[in-house]
């Protein structure tokens, strides 16, 4: 736990470093250090049989880069993908998100949108229920995603802060996996953006955790950081055994809480 926090709280330090030392020579491949901070000396096997990472070779918009971590094995009680770490090596806070999944997810495939600050390797590391680590990576060409100005007007962003939307993409069939997209309205300020009026750095203010439940069952927990895009979007799966309610609890770095729930049934 401690090393992970270190990676995340390193962000302000790096912000200062970037503000003061823009253009300084880039260090060597950061992945070995990141890997050690996150996973110690545990071996990470080639994860090509467990997950695939879909990311554009060249991002069209560095502030909204779609990424999909595709699970290549089903979530069963016997063996499932427990967590997925998504790491954008060259970003100021490299750990973009940790997704905690369960057999109730049905599928561990997760799709989200991230900011990419410079040409970088992106790593996805899955931990299966047997405690093994499986890694895959992609190289993404993009730049400026963390300092890109907010897409929305600041007043408008604050006015709809915390609003959520759920879209289900598959019909409701009891016992079968359903796919849903969760959208959370949040400016997800990185701390690397400039305030439009004062010309000061906008302090970081971002979605830190997302908890998705179906009834009482935990489906998905996301620990997130500044690399998720403005208005975070997470597409995930869950298995409704019967009609029920999907509920989401969000907490941001300013300790605001947002909750929302949607009925799931034949009509959804």
């Amino acid at each position, binding site marked *: 736990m401690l090393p992970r926090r270190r990676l995340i709280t390193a962000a302000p330090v790096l912000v200062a470093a970037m503000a003061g030392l823009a253009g300084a020579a880039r260090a060597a491949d950061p992945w070995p250090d990141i890997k050690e901070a996150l996973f110690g000396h545990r071996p990470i096997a080639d994860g090509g049989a467990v997950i695939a990472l879909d990311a554009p070779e060249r991002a069209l918009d560095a502030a*909204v880069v779609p990424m999909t971590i595709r699970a290549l094995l089903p979530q069963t009680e016997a063996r499932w993908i427990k967590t997925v770490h998504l790491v954008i090596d060259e970003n100021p806070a490299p750990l973009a998100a940790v997704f905690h999944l369960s057999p109730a997810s049905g599928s561990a495939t997760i799709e989200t949108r991230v900011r990419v600050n410079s040409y970088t390797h992106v790593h996805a590391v899955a931990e299966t229920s047997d405690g093994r680590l499986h890694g895959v990576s992609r190289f993404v060409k993009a730049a400026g995603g963390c300092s890109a*100005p907010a897409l929305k007007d600041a007043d408008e962003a604050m006015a709809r802060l915390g609003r959520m939307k759920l879209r289900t993409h598959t019909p409701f069939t009891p016992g079968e996996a359903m796919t849903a*997209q969760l959208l959370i309205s949040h400016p997800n300020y990185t701390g690397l953006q400039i305030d439009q*009026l004062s010309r000061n750095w906008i302090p970081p203010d971002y979605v830190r955790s997302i908890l998705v439940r179906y009834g009482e069952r935990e489906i998905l927990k996301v620990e997130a950081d500044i690399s998720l895009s403005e208005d975070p979007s997470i597409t995930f799966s869950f298995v409704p055994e019967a009609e029920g309610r999907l509920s989401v609890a969000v907490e941001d770095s300013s300790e605001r809480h947002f909750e929302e729930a949607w009925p799931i049934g034949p009509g959804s």
Partner: protein
Amino acid sequence: MRLLLAAFGLLAMAGPPAMAQALAVEEVAPGVFVHQGVHEEFTAANEGAIANLAFVVGQDAVAVIDSGGSLRQGRRLREAVEAHTGLPVRWVIATHAHPDHLFGHAAFAGDGVRFAGHQRLPREVASKGPLYLDNMTRLLGAASAGTELVAPDVTVPVGAPLEIDLGGRVLRLQAWPTAHTAADLTALDLESGTLFAGDLLFMERLPVVDGSLTGWLDVMAELAALPAERVVPGHGPAQAAWPEALAPQRAYLKALRDSVREAIEQGMPLGRAAEEIPLPAGQSWLLGDENHPRNVIASYTELEWE
């Protein structure tokens, strides 16, 4: 390489402004002059001159509408003004915050010159300007030398047009709700019936959505009712008939809206939508290959909240 560029930069800055070669302009109506931009991205060769720039000559003063993509372009536009009139430039109007339209502003700075723009232009310039300046410096190299950000000192709120008098000739400046960008402004020359639309109208070159797709379509419906005979688009020919000139852009934006809405409805994810939604059939646009997928992303992240 860096040293070499720096040396060129010094040479460029050392060159006296008077040596700038006047931009070619065309008189589209009496006293209304337009420089037609090229349909290219920013390059060192075009010095940022990719947007249409204009000036209007009254009996006492001149108003410049958009100043170009670099200080050098602004100086060349100023040369063009001075080649056609001895009257002073009193107004420099920015149609929005994009660098190809207002990075020449500094060439006109001086006593008695007012810089006008949308009420939201100062914050657009403050938040996005530094990024635009970095990009432009990278793309233009020495050709960008001396370019700086100039914020407007006269701002126009949405719903409250401002009329400026050039001496027997009135320009009506009108600010619009978020459309192409969050700070679009038009100028209407009441005497000649010429509407300077800025990038609220793209012709020939693919429109770029950097504000709100649905907002833009709404604003276009209002624009169409303006009493103009001709329009000077932000990109495209020096002039076109009004409001017929709106048709191709309207067709593109509507097709974009409909195809993105359909993709969202079908659950097609953002990345796939950007890759797979093609340019609308039967429409021909320049510079569409990169800009269309970007428009799909901008539209998708807007429309998915509907």
